């Protein structure tokens, strides 16, 4: 099955991004395709490459980057939400791209399932 995932909260503050990541990994392990993850609201904060968690903590941003590289997951950050919160091309982590809300709608249209994680 083709999956779309929506992440509405930032990393570390809320569990949403962790839950979404573990869901995506499990879906891929079951042979599904995670076609796109769309980051909206404070979820855009998952995409900054300036993130530096303590050594003994998970690196949420890099984890998404790795998932995108290994499984061709399209990580899309909403441009309007990103600009509001200071996420731009210049601080965008690898594997993410900034685009419009149409990308979320497209995921809803093209994917068999759209699963939302938020607050």
């Amino acid at each position, binding site marked *: 099955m083709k999956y779309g995932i929506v992440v509405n909260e930032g990393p570390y503050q809320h569990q949403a991004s962790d*839950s979404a990541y573990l869901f995506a990994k*499990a879906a891929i392990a079951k042979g599904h395709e995670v076609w796109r993850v769309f980051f909206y609201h404070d979820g855009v904060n998952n995409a900054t490459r300036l993130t530096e968690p303590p050594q003994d903590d998970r690196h949420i941003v890099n984890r998404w980057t790795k998932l995108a590289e290994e499984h061709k997951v399209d990580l899309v950050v909403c441009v309007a939400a990103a600009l509001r919160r200071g996420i731009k091309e210049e601080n965008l982590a690898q594997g993410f791209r900034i685009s419009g809300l149409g990308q979320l709608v497209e995921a809803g249209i093209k994917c068999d399932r759209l699963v939302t994680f938020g607050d």
Partner: protein
Amino acid sequence: MLHIINKSPLTSVSLNSCVNTAAGGDILLIEDAVYAATKGNAAEAVLQAAMGRFKVYVLMPDLEARGLGDRLMAGVNAVDYGGFVDLTSNNKSCQSWL
């Protein structure tokens, strides 16, 4: 339809709203909603009453993380993330009661 809840029933109306409004189907409790599936919590009756119309699941890693892996209420089905994925594929659609 799969209904995903992520808030504690003791601080949020999400679970109540879901069981009052939704037409039935599956309910999956994740994140802070797993407290709803524990024996002796004040909202236990809400979930018990819902069990006739819904099949109820709890995301076990979230329950274990909160130290309540041994307090699972009878009638609630434990799943891991793979089981979470299966619930989304077996249901025609899903909704997160954020």
